[in-house]
């Protein structure tokens, strides 16, 4: 059986690569230190493939045709899509895909109540381009991208997202070959509201409460307290990207997360941070 060697979640806001110099200098330093810690935790686990979960920013699924989850089945990917190139300020990159793993998830998901739409031609924006630049600067770890609907109601419920994470972990462990080392990487959040009423605001109180809940290691409490309404009140067009973190939480199981970075980055228009779940002890 394959092994899940790392579960983490981190913000992907484009300001981190596009206009970081606008943030106060001490905050720039803390952000770069924090993302370096996320890099180190990720690399220490020596994953050979990432199952990524992130919001589709209306780039692959139009507002009138969204699926809850859209999985990428190609053997190779490239990014960023041209429209995002100058905005993100990242050079073009290529990364391997992993069709066999994507197909295993698609095949085994429905028996566990999880279905995926599939595509072999996904466009990438900040959702993968920002985290990959920091976690895998050499783009040498394969990626199975799962795009999800976080911003077109009706959204998948937190409870369903948690179940999707549980199913992904179960399938990887039960159906993938021994020796395969899988990282689960959720990207998005924390509080932000692209284009909405809170576009220029960050809700630090919400963010710190959310991170503290993850650190408490009690998924039931997360699901009770982090409702879609609670996320929406902190920015309804962006904070709901934390649904991807709840997928990661489902994959991690009943374990505490550790916050490696948090900054209320107003100049980046986003609460920026990242957590890793400690996978060493057996889940309770």
């Amino acid at each position, binding site marked *: 059986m394959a092994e899940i060697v790392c579960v983490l979640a981190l913000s992907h806001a484009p300001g981190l690569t596009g*206009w970081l110099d606008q943030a106060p200098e001490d905050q720039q330093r803390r952000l770069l230190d924090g993302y370096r810690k996320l890099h180190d935790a990720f690399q220490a686990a020596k994953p050979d493939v990432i199952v990524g979960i992130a919001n589709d920013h*209306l780039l692959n699924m139009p507002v009138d045709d969204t699926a809850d989850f859209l999985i990428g089945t190609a053997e190779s990917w490239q990014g960023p899509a041209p*429209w995002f190139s100058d905005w993100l300020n990242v050079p073009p990159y290529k990364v391997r895909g992993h069709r066999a793993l994507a197909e295993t998830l698609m095949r085994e998901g429905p028996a566990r109540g999880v279905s995926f739409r599939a595509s072999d031609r996904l466009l990438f924006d900040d959702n993968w381009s920002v985290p990959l630049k920091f976690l895998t600067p050499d783009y040498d770890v394969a990626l199975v991208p799962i795009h999800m609907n976080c*911003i077109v109601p009706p959204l998948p419920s937190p409870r369903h997202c948690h179940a999707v994470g549980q199913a992904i972990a179960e399938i990887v462990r039960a159906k993938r070959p021994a020796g395969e080392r899988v990282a689960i990487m959720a990207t998005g959040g924390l509080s932000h509201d692209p284009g909405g009423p809170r576009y220029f605001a960050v809700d630090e109180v919400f963010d710190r409460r959310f991170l503290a809940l993850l650190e408490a290691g009690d998924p039931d409490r997360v699901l009770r307290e982090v409702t879609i309404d609670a996320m*929406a009140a902190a920015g*309804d067009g962006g904070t709901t990207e934390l649904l991807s973190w709840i997928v990661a939480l489902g994959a991690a199981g009943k374990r505490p997360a550790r916050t490696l970075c948090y900054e209320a980055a107003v100049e980046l228009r986003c609460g920026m941070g990242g957590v890793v779940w400690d996978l060493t002890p057996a889940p309770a």
Partner: protein
Amino acid sequence: MRSRAGKFSLTIRRGCISFPEMGIADVDKSLASNRMVFELRRDEAALERFRADFEGTLTAYALSEAEKVAWRERDIGALGKLGVHPYFLPQIARLFRGGAYNHNRSAAAKLYAATVLGEKD
């Protein structure tokens, strides 16, 4: 879906009264502008046509007169009120003012703030 007051409430920001809140629950999924922005970001040829033939592109996507007026006036707030997804609104600002170095005082962010929030430069 939304825990805040309804869409006709006023938001207070930086001490100014700004326009009625519009969130993701207020999107008109059938609005032609939503299809147009979706495709302009995906398709470089479509983006080139938009830049070369603005009026022709608005017509090709079958925008309503109200949508066309908002696009001509670069009134991003009006597009939001017509039902464009909030996520697209800053991207429309970037269509007009460029996407690079998109910080809070960039030309694109200022266009958003002026036409959506009614802020003076």
